[in-house]
């Protein structure tokens, strides 16, 4: 009987063993390691053991030990593979968690989550959809879809991803920066079809969300519990429904499938995705809350700004009101004696008693009339606190005022150039007050620029605003002069003093509109009445 194995041929050079490969030279000096790593699998060793006499107990013992050893080793290898895969998964989840934790923007979080689900470097699903519960928690709304729409697109995308060699984080950043909007638009039709009411308790999405458990749907078209419409929309037989829950709050649903490859989704895939779904749900909720918080902060900031403006307006209006009360009181006290002075002058003119002093009487009358007009302007300041609002055509108002002022001007010297926007929307305004403001602005321009020639009146609209502007092409105003014009009785060397434009500003502010004086590049000034495009009932 001849033994082949080196254990039974002690004189054989061990370095001639065909099972020991390059790099395994350490086995030459360690018989124990050589036995368990090489000999138990060696054909010569097996054959030598088989040659042992049947009555030898060693033969049976060695066979049992050898088989048991091989089985245990196989089991260990399987466990090692499992641990390696879990270790990679933990590493991957850790990386994702880090990104998710640092992302505060909802779209950024969604980009990370959806890329992780659909990327080969992540969970490797072909396609994923996110449905989110709306604010009233009445609907699950299709929010985002990621993946290809057909086979051609799939191969193109995967080829690109392969060649780019991006890490998962880089892929998700790229997706967030360049693709999220187009992906949303690409799947808009499917997202709309996926949207369902939260009241449909038996719908697979609501069941998964309410029961807080993922559902792996198989043979969807044969499954009576699955809505045929959903099967038709997705076009797959197998898909995964993953609920997103954060601290007892239903955030939404993740849908994933292998639409292109039809690779089966395993319970293990489902388990991995479930582990991933927890931090995703939390990150989505946090980002949503952060987004809402930002909205609220923005609203608060706007409200504060408005409040500040209102406070400033109130202070200014209070100041104006004080001036108004004083001027009103003085004006009323003047009106009675003025009516008497003018009235008596007229009586004397009529009687002919002072025919030789007719010019003096005419002067008294002229001055009384002028004072009467000043009084009317000053008294308007305290009149009509509440505008009488109605729908008017601003073009018609501008044309009427221009025609009226042209007719009233001495020898019709005043000429207007009207540039009125066609189809200007009707807006709600107090015709009398706006007409008064326009007249006042025109008077201001003509008084200060008697040689200005024709005056341009323009109307235009943009969004919620309508502009009615008077253009002074000649003179430009300094900031000091603009401020002076907006303050009653503030005097400037060149513009004199008065309440005209300051009164317009108050009237327009009470009216919910505004008044602005702007420089025209290259010279000139634009006086703008800015109205809100208020519709009926607003």
């Amino acid at each position, binding site marked *: 009987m001849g033994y082949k194995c080196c254990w039974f041929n002690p004189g054989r050079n061990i370095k001639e063993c065909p099972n020991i490969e390059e790099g395994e030279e350490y086995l030459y000096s360690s018989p124990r390691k050589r036995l368990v790593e090489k000999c138990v699998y060696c054909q010569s060793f097996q054959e030598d053991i088989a040659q042992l006499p049947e009555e030898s107990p060693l033969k049976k013992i060695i066979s049992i030990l050898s088989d048991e050893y091989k089985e245990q080793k196989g089991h260990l290898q399987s466990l090692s593979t499992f641990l390696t895969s879990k270790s990679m998964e933990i590493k991957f989840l850790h990386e994702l968690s880090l990104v998710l934790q640092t992302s505060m923007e909802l779209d950024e979080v969604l980009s990370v989550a959806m890329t992780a689900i659909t990327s080969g470097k992540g969970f490797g699903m072909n396609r994923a959809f996110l449905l989110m519960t709306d604010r009233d928690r009445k609907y699950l709304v299709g929010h985002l879809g990621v993946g290809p729409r057909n086979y051609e697109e799939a191969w193109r995308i995967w080829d690109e991803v392969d060649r780019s060699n991006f890490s998962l984080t880089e892929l998700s950043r790229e997706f967030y920066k360049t693709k999220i909007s187009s992906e949303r638009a690409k799947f808009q039709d499917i997202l709309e079809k996926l949207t369902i009411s939260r009241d449909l308790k038996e719908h697979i999405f609501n069941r998964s969300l309410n029961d807080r458990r993922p559902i792996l749907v198989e043979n969807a078209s044969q499954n009576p519990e699955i809505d045929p419409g959903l099967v038709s929309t997705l076009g797959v037989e197998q898909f995964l429904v993953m609920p997103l829950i954060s601290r007892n709050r239903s955030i939404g649903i993740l849908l994933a499938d292998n639409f292109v490859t039809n690779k089966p989704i395993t319970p293990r895939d489902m388990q991995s995705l479930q582990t991933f779904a927890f931090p995703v749900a939390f990150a989505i909720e946090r980002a949503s809350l952060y987004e809402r918080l930002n909205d609220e902060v923005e609203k608060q900031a706007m409200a504060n700004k408005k409040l500040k403006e209102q406070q400033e307006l109130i202070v200014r209006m209070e100041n104006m009101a004080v001036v108004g009360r004083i001027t009103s009181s003085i004006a*009323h006290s003047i*009106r*009675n*004696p*003025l*009516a*008497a*002075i*003018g*009235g*008596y*002058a*007229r*009586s004397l003119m*009529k009687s002919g008693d002072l025919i030789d002093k007719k010019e003096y009487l005419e002067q008294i*009358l002229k001055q*009384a*009339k002028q004072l*009467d007009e000043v009084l*009317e302007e000053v*008294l308007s300041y*305290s*009149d*009509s606190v509440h505008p009488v609002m109605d729908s008017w055509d601003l073009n018609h108002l501008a044309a009427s005022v221009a025609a009226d002022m042209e007719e009233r001007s001495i020898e019709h010297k005043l000429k207007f150039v009207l540039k009125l926007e066609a189809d200007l929307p009707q807006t709600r305004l107090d015709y009398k007050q706006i007409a008064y403001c326009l007249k006042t602005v025109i008077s201001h321009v003509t008084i200060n620029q008697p040689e200005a020639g024709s005056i341009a009146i323009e109307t235009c609209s943009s969004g919620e605003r309508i502009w009615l502007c008077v253009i002074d092409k000649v003179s430009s105003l300094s900031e000091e002069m603009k401020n002076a014009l907006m303050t009653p009785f503030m005097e400037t060397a060149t513009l004199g003093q008065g309440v005209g434009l300051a009164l317009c500003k108050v009237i327009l502010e009470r009216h919910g509109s505004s008044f602005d004086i702007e420089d025209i590049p290259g010279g000139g000034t634009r006086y703008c009445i800015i109205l809100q495009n208020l519709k009926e009932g607003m």
Partner: protein
Amino acid sequence: MNRILIVDDEASIRLLYSQELMDEGYEVDTAGTISEALGLLSEKSYSVTLLDIKLKNESGLDLLQKLVKERNDMAVILSTAFSCYKDDFSAWLADGYVVKSSDMKELKDEIKRLIERKRAR
């Protein structure tokens, strides 16, 4: 002849208005207070009362309410330095509203209109 009552606390206005209206051919009486006006109204009948709103410490609007109730055959014109009372509901009871001015044409036209309206009834 149509008789007009002028109620105004300003003597200069009373004098001016009465002269101007007498020149127009009206018979005119004047009162500086509400009690004076009520005294005259109890003695005579008038076609038109010209009523100032601010009468020192009294309000012409109070007298207006009384006249509307008791003398609905007589027209009342509010003649005042305040244009803002046009928006006051109680002023709407009057038949006319004229803001005081050195030019009395508007006032005279209003008186004529109301007298013709009364005649046409």
